[in-house]
């Protein structure tokens, strides 16, 4: 039998097994659901389930800001490390200095900017204000400088690749572990972000989790800590799978 058909069959078997297991474990899942409801009751039933609004807002906010930041970071790092761009050193230094400005000093100008374009107290405004991650951009820069030597880029050029082609066919395939690390750190900083949401979002119903949960301080501290940590830990476990030694060994023969 060809490999394709074999793979298809084994996938079919897996799906069948999955459904069978699910069917068999419905009673157990039912119990687990009730237990979870009991544990999280003080949070879930607070103020007619405003928690779920926060959860929805947080997922929209983190999802969009994360996508924008990671795409920008990795691309920027690649461009700064590999291509000839004008003012390269200045851009790098500017990235570095952006990280040195305390967030307390950044919050006010960002707020004024968002207010001027009329996006105050909206999720879109928060997303726009949070979608920068200089730490990740610089990390990508460092990564690409060590992983993409000029010889490799030169070979790509000889084979007729343009700038975008080098990014698409050399940069991205080499940067799996970078993307997962940047995604993880960006997620953590957005998920726990406090200052900007505090300044930009004022209405409680439009709030996000990291500032919404303040109402539970003192009564359910451990519960909150648990809820806030779980997504980060899961993402960490997923992201650390891609880190492997020597993805680039032997690409250039002397």
């Amino acid at each position, binding site marked *: 039998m060809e490999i394709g058909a074999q793979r298809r069959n084994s996938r079919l078997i897996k799906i069948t097994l999955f459904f069978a297991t699910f069917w068999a474990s419905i009673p157990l899942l039912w119990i687990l659901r009730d237990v979870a409801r009991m544990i999280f009751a003080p949070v879930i039933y607070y103020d007619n389930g405003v928690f779920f609004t926060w959860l929805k807002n947080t997922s929209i906010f983190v999802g969009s800001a994360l996508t924008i930041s990671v795409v920008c970071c990795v691309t920027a790092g690649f461009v700064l*490390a*590999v291509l000839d761009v004008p003012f*390269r*050193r200045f851009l*790098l*230094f500017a990235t*570095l*200095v952006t*990280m*040195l*400005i*305390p*967030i*307390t*000093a950044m919050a*006010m100008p960002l707020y004024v900017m968002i207010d001027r374009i009329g996006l105050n107290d909206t999720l879109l405004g928060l997303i726009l204000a949070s979608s920068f991650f200089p*730490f990740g951009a*610089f*990390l990508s820069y*460092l*990564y*690409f*400088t*060590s*992983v*993409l*030597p*000029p*010889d490799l*880029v030169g070979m790509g050029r000889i084979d007729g690749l343009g700038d975008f082609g080098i990014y698409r066919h050399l940069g991205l395939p080499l940067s799996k*572990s970078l993307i997962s*690390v940047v995604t*993880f*750190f960006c997620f*953590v900083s957005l998920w*726990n972000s*406090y200052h900007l949401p505090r300044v930009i979002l004022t209405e409680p119903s439009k709030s996000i989790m*990291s500032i919404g*949960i*303040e109402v539970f*301080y003192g009564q359910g*501290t451990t519960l*909150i*800590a648990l809820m*806030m*940590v779980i997504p*980060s*830990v899961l993402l*960490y*476990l997923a992201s*650390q799978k891609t*880190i*492997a*030694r*020597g*993805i*680039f*060994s*032997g690409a*250039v023969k002397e």
Partner: protein
Amino acid sequence: MDGGYETFLRILEDFRVVPAIINVLFLLAIFVPLMIITVLAVSLLLDSIDFKYNRTTRLLFLIPGLIPVAVAVLFWSAVVGYDVVWDKSNIRWFIGAISFSTGIGSWIVIQYGSLRSISHEVLEAGVVDGCNRFQLAWRLKLPMISRYVAYMVILLIVGTLQIFNEPNLLIYTNMTTDWSPSQIAFTYAFKNADFAGGVALSLIMLIPNVILALLFVLNTDFMKKSKSSWK
């Protein structure tokens, strides 16, 4: 109309600024070197052997940094005991310990990743030349990740100079109201509604950071374009 250099003078004459700077220098002198050494030691050790619980170890180092800071401070107070927290002579050590434990995890993850991006060939060449594990780490691995290390050193120093969350969350002890320069800037801007003052202090704090960054940039090959990693 506020602004002008009088604002800067007014900030520098504030009686709270000097003690705050001393507090931060204390952290800088003791905890930052400790953090750098710990991070490098742990990540090199993890990289040097095939350790079954590698991922779990890094996760355990990381978790304190993932907890929202507000919750973390409550935990910490409970761990060391409230009588220790309330003692004024301990507060610097306490803040240092929190920033230490929340800060190292993420850097261990990054430095471990950077160590993993060193290619096999180089390490094999080292082994062929007769390096033992320590020499491999000291003579090959560390020089090859030196840029990441420089990056870490800058950000750790800057992060300490700007320390805000930890003292701000210990405010309930009434001992850390204006403990660090960042907090004073925050007080100016958001409590006294004196934005000029807050910005002036932030700018003053930015000066050492920029000097530091410039020093690093000019004295290392930090800004060089991509180079062959091991020639």
